[in-house]
């Protein structure tokens, strides 16, 4: 009887090894949860940055559309007016920043605006699907390498590039603006 009782009381506890194993298992589990939480945090941040970039690019597209609509009231100078505002060295300029996004090291600002004035360029060369090459100045062909003086419509490519903890990300939005 006594021996039985002694064995029973010994069995009721945990050995150091059992405790250590349980603790290690618990720690591994908790560290996995921590890793998942951090990963979720990172994904959430990526989503937020993408939404910010999307909103900014869309806003720029709307502003260019607005400038184009106003400039189209004088069709003869439409291209010059639009490029004079949003082209390289224009009043607004062809780059823009997005608050909350960090520009890549090789460019000063997050966003760039590119007007395509060469109607011979293809979608493959431009890196977007926008139906190029296309007759942009209404002369019946798509062979002119510079239509900046007489374009009736222009493709515009708005690109946002940023980095998230060193990882590059980008968003590209092509659109057409009309000068009539």
């Amino acid at each position: 009887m006594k021996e039985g009782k002694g064995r029973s009381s010994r069995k009721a506890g945990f050995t150091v090894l059992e405790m250590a194993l349980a603790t290690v298992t618990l720690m591994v589990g908790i560290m996995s949860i921590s890793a998942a939480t951090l990963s979720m945090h990172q994904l959430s941040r990526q989503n937020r940055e993408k939404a910010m970039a999307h909103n900014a690019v869309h806003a720029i597209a709307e502003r260019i559309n607005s400038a184009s609509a106003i400039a189209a009231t004088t069709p003869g100078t439409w291209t010059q007016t639009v490029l004079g505002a949003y082209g390289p060295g224009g009043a607004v300029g062809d780059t823009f920043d997005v608050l909350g996004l960090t520009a890549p090291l090789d460019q000063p600002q997050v966003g760039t605006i590119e007007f395509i004035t060469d109607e011979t360029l293809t979608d493959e060369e431009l890196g977007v699907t926008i139906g190029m090459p296309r007759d942009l100045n209404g002369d019946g062909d798509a062979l002119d390498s510079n239509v900046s003086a007489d374009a009736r419509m222009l493709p515009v490519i708005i690109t946002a590039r940023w980095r998230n903890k060193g990882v590059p990300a980008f968003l590209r939005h092509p659109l057409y603006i009309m000068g009539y």
Partner: protein
Amino acid sequence: MQRPKNQRSGYSLLELTFSVSIYALILLTTLGMLERDTHLSQSVLSTSHVEQMAQELIYRLKGELANAQGANPMAIVTADLGDMETQILRVDSTLGFPNTGTLILDRGTNSEERIQYAELEDTEEFFVSLARGEQCTDQHAHAPGTELIWAGLAEPLAQQESPSPDQYDGRTMGILGPVYFRGDGTGFSYRKPVDPAGGLDVMVGDKLKWGSVVNNVPTLDGWSALAFQPRYTFSEVQTDRDLNHDGDKLDVFDVGVIGRRRWVSGDASWTTDEINMGPAAVLQEQCGWGSDLDSDGFDDPIFLWDKDTRQLQIRLFVVGGVSTGNPIVRKVESTIFLRNEVEI
């Protein structure tokens, strides 16, 4: 010769203390990590939720306004308005004003007053049922010739070069730099193409037919407006957080919805059609709607309407996590170019 059993099975006091210390340390670390993870998860989920709310609201507003034609509701007082008058305010025209709302008179002067009105008279010459001295202003008399605007509207001044304080209500960051504007920027009045016959023919010749669908009835006398409507008050003191990063924890905010209102101008017999465009999560500073919400030194109107470029700038500060005592504010902004020409 065997050693006594009880000597082999026990631990020394030193061993026991050592093991207990290690387990206590591990347990405490584990609990700390669990608490940190819980907090981080809650924070991530709350933030994601708020960001999603804000983004959904922006998308809904863009969808609502995609083919809209913006209006600039403003009027001139045509009869003396005494400081105790609460019945009517007579103006040249109430066209474009929502059928309830707030007006700003004598802005930027010592007589500035915000007057709330409950309805428009059918002749479109009177604001009816007035509540005087609203939104932290005092009651004053106003003479004929005084210009008034719907407080919801925020529009840039034509004269941006050093305007005097009585000419503007705020200064915000625009596309090309700081922009002086007037109004609160908490609303936007507009019309949309409609076919009064209920079909899809919204053209008369080469012109669009403008109006609104009020209670599922398309009508050319219909109007729509989006406006901030406060639902509850939130104080920084409640959670000891500096939500607008202005260096103190004393600010009080109105938290509300962006409501869409549709009504028939000149016919009060129509019931107003009202819905909320999103949850009650839009933040505005109490007694300072349209003011700076992120301490960047510029005011933050929700809507800034430039009728010349037809650009509507939308800027929303959305708050979430209020019920859990962990408020998070997120800002989303975008610009919409309204393709259709302004008529009034």
